[in-house]
């Protein structure tokens, strides 16, 4: 192929690419840091995203009785909503008992979900300290921490959950 022709083709490709890009108006505005901080509720298993705060098992029991018990039952059992504690069977029994203690792999998930979604009738009404406290109480009810413990941004991610290694990542094993 002679040089002018090649240049023409390269030139056309460049124009096509530029046209494709020019179709996108790029109207996104820079997001203020304060907006991101206010909106970002994500808490990762390594503790990234945990806000400042702490709560004890005893404090959490009071929060639970006021905000959670009417749906989840006394000590996390027998309510109209999900069973949270008190598993009488393991995961290989019939039927299996899937509770925080037997099934949930990460303690951070408990904080993340409670803070963003609970209580169902007044989501967002608990302070971070209250969410830490009720997290502590639920971990205590599931025999994961002792009654005298405090849960905070510093120690939550390091609390070992019994079913931490109970999951098979199907997507990671897929052939692509």
């Amino acid at each position, binding site marked *: 192929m002679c040089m002018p022709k090649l240049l023409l083709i390269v030139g056309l490709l460049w124009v096509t690419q530029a046209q494709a890009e020019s179709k996108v108006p790029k109207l996104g505005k820079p997001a203020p840091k304060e*907006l991101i901080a206010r909106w970002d509720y994500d808490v*990762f298993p390594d503790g990234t995203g945990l806000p400042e705060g702490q709560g004890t098992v005893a404090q959490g029991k009071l929060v639970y009785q006021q905000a959670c018990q009417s749906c989840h039952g006394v000590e996390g059992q027998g309510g109209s909503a999900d069973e949270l504690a008190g598993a009488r069977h393991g*995961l*290989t029994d019939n039927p299996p008992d899937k509770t925080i203690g037997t099934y949930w792999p990460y303690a951070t998930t408990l904080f993340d979900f409670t803070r963003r979604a609970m209580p169902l009738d007044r989501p967002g009404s608990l302070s971070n300290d209250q969410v830490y406290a009720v997290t502590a109480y639920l971990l205590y009810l599931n025999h994961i921490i002792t009654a005298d413990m405090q849960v905070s941004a510093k120690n939550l991610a390091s609390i070992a959950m019994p079913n931490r290694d109970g999951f098979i990542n*199907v997507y990671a094993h897929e052939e692509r």
Partner: protein
Amino acid sequence: MNEQQALTPLAAGGLLDRRAFLQRSLSFSVATLVSSEALATPENGREPWMEKPGAPFSNYGEPAAHERHVIRWTMGNDKALGNGVSWTPLQNLEGIFTPNGLHFERHHNGVPQIDPKQHKLLIHGLVNNSLVFTLEDLLRYPMHSCYCFLECGGNSNAAWHSEPIQTAVGYFHGMASCSEWTGIPLKLLLDEAQVKGRAKWLIVEGADASMMQVSIPLDKALDDCLLALYQNGERIRPENGYPMRLIVPGWEGVLNVKWVRRIHLAAQPVMARNETAKYTELLPSGKARQFTYVMEVKSLITQPSFGYKLPQPGIYQITGLAWSGRGKIAKVEVSADGGKTWLEAELQEPVLSKCFTRFRIPWQWQGQEAILQSRATDETGARQPAREHLLAARGQHGYFHYNAIVSWEISAQGEIKHVYA
């Protein structure tokens, strides 16, 4: 093909050649019905609605008054009315697209009433440019349509039970619907934000009261995910994510985040409640399958099915839906004898990737007991499993991702029951 050939069953149980229904030779036995009904016609030949002007125009049309029984069945928690599901009445519908008012619902804390002027989309995390978009901005972006099914990971979960549930097909398999979704390829917005090399996941969150969030692999987001603004031509309904939702073609429903307002680029999944405690499938070993994104190949007969009674022996059109999260449906086979023999059904065009596909096959019922089943195979060669095989592989407590063959038992009286066969 002559009439005799068309009516010769090609499989035991009376299944006919799939091309037979197109032929004039099968439009029989209608004549007697018409002649007896003709006597009920008024003398002047005009029905009452032909003797006065019809109703005026309407700003937004509704189904015929006689079709108001075709509804979603809703199932909620009495103490939490916005936490539950509603089911698409698949048994009443034809074609492949679901009317917007009948699309299934799964909400985790109700349908938010969003002011579109206040709603914003934030993209942040591992990006060079954290960006905020308004709906007005987004409406100016290039759009395209994705014709695809949405199926809840928990669809068909009653079929894990030991006893077959006796209810209409839509009310235990109808957490599956299909639409034309139109919106902006997510890749355009991610490119504008300039995703950093370390980013591998998107944490996508909705603006509902549960702030429902899930982790989605970046590869999938760049491949075919859509930020949808329209459903079947009109703006998305509130219960389906107004003013914007994510569409993740072929993957389980919960990932198709409704009312989406935040996309967080991250190096790791967030391990949300809805990808750990829920939407994971416990196996007999005690381990659970996680991130089982793809909705596997599946089909079911929508007519005849539970709730319908065959009035008399004769020819019936068996029809149903097939779909696969891995691509196009390659074939659907139908059995009228509980799986002993199978015959390929006609696939109605268009056959689209990750979309409902309508199948049809004529069947000559001679008043015998029969078991109707359908079995789909997708273009990757994956075939819908028998229930016993699915249970052998997954046990009975997986709850999510049930895609086994569905069986309808026809009695000698023409009554239809759901059975495990």
